[in-house]
């Protein structure tokens, strides 16, 4: 994106009326690998002359000969380089040093338009590709869990649910490339089903954002951005063997888990194709994980095709498939879980000559889960099938004016849910939405973004979600941001239509079709100091009020249902920092203070009031090896347990002591593009058999290769 930015800046200047008296030809290569770098911006600022390198890294630039002519070479992910052309060099090879970390990333989530991270009026946290690699995490859940303010909670199906800032993940909208994920078992998305190998970066915005994204963006949104055209020509293969120490000691090295990842991308003329495949074979350790599964297999694949037949049109066709199989065996029960997902997306972008841009997308999501429980002697106990599908059409227009940038859009969707546990077996809902946003400068230093969204669901009232955000540039490096907005979450199919007898525990759950959407009303304010090459430090205060929260309650003994009743206030303080110590050392840290209380002033269960994380990583100048150390600390807190006799959460007998989880990993380049990696997760072997983490010390070793260029 940065290349496009510079290309835009200098596009006019290329054709400016410069009298060419000299031509410089050259090649730009990576200093460590000597691999040519395409799309590098090459320009002479004083003469307003510029161009970009071709796929093989070559460029040719005409310029006016003279004294003090400096050629600047710039590319995202690399340190800028400026060379003098006073020696009248005609052919040059320019070597760029890879930057360890890029501060000036382009973000898209907080405004649905492309903006430089430092210029976005709504505070956005970015987890970069470098962060992902440093974490050693295989799945998004593991990755996010290493950050402060994030915790895991075991769900009824044995999997894990994410809590962010103490908020249940159903109040955080999870997007993949800007599109919602379908298939939320028990109203939650399983982020351990999203592999990190296909991710370019993750953007997180906190506070209500339904003005842009509609339902579920009550307390924030997480946008998982996958690899795309900018990945260029590449092929990579990665194989990892990992296991918990407990499991390895008990069952030997043959009972570890394996992960394989394969990614490849190729640009042919106007077409770019990317293909990714991930396979995980996991042997769980039931004695510590308390998960009712012995073997888990995960397969995921993505095909992503982009076609740009002209400067005006571009098309993107993307299909993501996921398959998940869990098998558990015991002397009393054999269980089998099968999950499949398919997300297909077709997008067309059209640029009009008058500056308007149109983007429209058709998106189809399918989710299916089967769960079978069978006694070893053949008696069938459970045979549940859940199917969910969602078809959505989205159209957005956008134009930049002198005064600002406008974008507006329309969404229409039809969703259906089929389950043995819902009334009539299948339920469906349709929704139409309109939204608009204007991003403008009120004064030179004051950027304002204001937007509103209208959502109309087929079975209940219209929901209006406004948002307004301000960014005031105190100086070039100091910025103050504040936003106010509303959010909502439409009741889930299960909350509205469930009809299920829990035979084992002797109660029945009946849905409530009259439920209203849950509402939120939130405010954030923060200050950021930003040095483009060194530091980024920010502090943010947030307060979000929730109304109409849906809770389960007892109509009578043995009969449960849902109702809108709860109110709560979530507030907290978040500090974050990054420090590029040098071109080889990088550190980042974060600290969260969370204070989430219901309307009686009682702390919300699962709130971890204090948490922090720190990371330091090193990458040798020639990229021969790299290492990272991460630590996450959670302060002492009083957990709460559900008491079935009172139907309330009650404080546990004693507080949970402070704990620290330490992860470390390293990678050594053993031969050209071949590297060997190894890591230790939870190095301190901290576990808690009641509140987690349930997985103790674990280690992995991996071999990976990556080939880039033509």
């Amino acid at each position, binding site marked *: 994106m940065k290349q496009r930015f510079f290309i835009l800046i200098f596009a006019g200047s290329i054709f400016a009326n410069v009298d060419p008296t000299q031509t410089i030809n050259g090649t730009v290569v990576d200093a460590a690998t000597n691999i040519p770098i395409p799309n590098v911006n090459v320009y002479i600022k004083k003469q307003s002359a510029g161009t970009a390198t071709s796929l093989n890294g070559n460029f040719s630039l005409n310029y006016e000969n003279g004294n003090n002519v400096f050629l600047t070479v710039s590319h995202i992910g690399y340190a800028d380089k400026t060379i003098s052309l006073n020696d009248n060099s005609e052919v040059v090879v320019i070597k760029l040093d890879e930057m360890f970390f890029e501060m000036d990333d382009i973000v898209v989530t907080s405004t649905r338009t492309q903006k430089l991270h430092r210029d976005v009026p709504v505070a956005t946290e970015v987890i970069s590709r470098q962060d992902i690699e440093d974490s050693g995490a295989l799945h998004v859940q593991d990755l996010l869990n290493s950050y402060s303010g994030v915790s895991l909670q075991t769900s*009824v199906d044995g999997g894990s649910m994410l809590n962010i800032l103490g908020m249940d993940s159903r109040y955080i909208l999870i997007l993949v490339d800007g599109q919602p994920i379908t298939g939320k078992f028990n109203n939650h998305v399983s982020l351990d089903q999203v592999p990190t190998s296909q991710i370019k970066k993750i953007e997180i915005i906190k506070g209500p954002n339904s003005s842009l994204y509609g339902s579920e963006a009550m307390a924030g949104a997480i946008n998982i951005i996958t690899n795309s055209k900018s990945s260029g020509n590449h092929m990579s293969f990665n194989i990892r063997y990992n296991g918990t120490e407990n499991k390895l000691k008990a069952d030997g090295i043959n009972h570890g888990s394996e992960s394989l990842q394969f990614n490849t991308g190729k640009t042919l003329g106007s077409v770019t194709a990317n293909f990714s495949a991930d396979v995980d074979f996991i042997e769980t350790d039931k004695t510590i994980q308390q998960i009712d599964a012995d073997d888990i297999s995960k397969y995921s694949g993505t095909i992503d095709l982009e076609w740009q037949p002209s400067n005006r049109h571009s098309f993107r066709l993307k299909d993501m498939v996921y398959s998940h199989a869990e098998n558990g065996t015991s*002397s009393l029960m054999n269980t089998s879980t099968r999950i499949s997902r398919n997300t297909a997306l077709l997008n067309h972008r059209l640029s009009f000559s008058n500056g308007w841009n149109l983007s429209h997308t058709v998106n189809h999501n399918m989710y299916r889960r089967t769960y079978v429980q069978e006694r070893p002697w053949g008696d069938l106990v459970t045979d549940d099938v859940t199917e969910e599908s969602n078809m959505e059409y989205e159209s957005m227009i956008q134009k930049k004016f002198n005064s600002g940038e406008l974008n507006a859009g329309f969404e229409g969707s039809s969703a259906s849910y089929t389950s043995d546990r819902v009334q009539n077996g299948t339920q469906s809902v349709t929704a139409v939405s309109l939204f608009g946003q204007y991003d403008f400068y009120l004064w030179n230093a004051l950027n304002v973004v204001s937007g509103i969204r209208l959502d109309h669901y087929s079975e209940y009232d219209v929901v209006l979600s406004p948002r307004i955000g301000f960014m005031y540039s105190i100086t070039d490096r100091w910025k103050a941001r504040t936003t106010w907005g509303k959010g909502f979450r439409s009741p889930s199919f299960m909350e509205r239509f469930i009809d299920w007898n829990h035979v084992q525990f002797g109660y029945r759950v009946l849905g409530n079709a009259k439920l209203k959407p849950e509402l939120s009303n939130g405010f954030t304010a923060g200050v950021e100091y930003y040095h483009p090459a060194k530091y980024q430090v920010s502090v943010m205060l947030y307060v979000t009020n929730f109304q109409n929260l849906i809770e389960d309650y007892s109509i009578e003994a043995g009969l449960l249902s849902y109702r809108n009743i709860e109110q709560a206030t979530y507030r907290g303080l978040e500090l974050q920092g990054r420090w590029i110590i040098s071109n080889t050392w990088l550190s980042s840290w974060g600290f969260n203070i969370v204070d989430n209380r219901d309307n009686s002033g009682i702390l919300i269960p699962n709130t971890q009031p204090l948490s922090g994380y720190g990371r330091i990583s090193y990458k040798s100048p020639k990229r021969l090896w790299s290492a990272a150390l991460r630590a996450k600390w959670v302060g002492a807190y009083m957990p709460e347990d559900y008491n*079935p006799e009172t139907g309330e959460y009650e404080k546990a007998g004693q507080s949970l002591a402070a704990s620290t989880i330490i992860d470390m990993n390293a990678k050594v380049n053993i031969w050209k593009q071949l590297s060997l990696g190894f890591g230790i997760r939870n190095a301190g072997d901290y576990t808690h058999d009641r509140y987690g983490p349930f997985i103790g010390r674990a280690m992995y070793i991996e071999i990976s290769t990556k080939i880039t260029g033509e």
Partner: protein
Amino acid sequence: MKNLTQLVLMMMLLLCVACEDTKDDDSVTLTVIEVITGDLDDGSYYYNFTSESEDTASWHLSLQNIAVGNYYMPSIVLDSTKVMVAVDTVNAFSDITTGPSSSAYSSSTSLVGYGGTQEILNYSFTTHTVSTSTSTYFAYILATHKVYKLYFEEYSAGIVKFKYAELSQ
């Protein structure tokens, strides 16, 4: 490497066999009985240790769903009119050959039921699973003065698997 490991292990095994104590084994051989209860979905399950069979009329141990607030929780119930109970939280079931002293027994058998201090079946509202205690339990039958050690191996969707053996006095 694998073959070498196997060879070393076989040699060690031979060494152990060669050095085995050939004196008469005076260890106690106990008859361990394994029981898989009926499904709670079909109603409570009752078992008699003496007759080694399901017995709804005269039972020592029962698996029942008991009302707890708005829910029903699986619970192991011992008939306090017929049984006294003791708990060993230290020794493994297989290592125990004699019962505890008489003072260790309690007539308050509710301590092994749901919510008791030594509950056999525990429902975790954190992990939403029912697990079995790792302790070994002793049942003293008042009528026959026999002592049984009990171990509960697994609970799964309304069925419990346990084993027990009669101990010498």
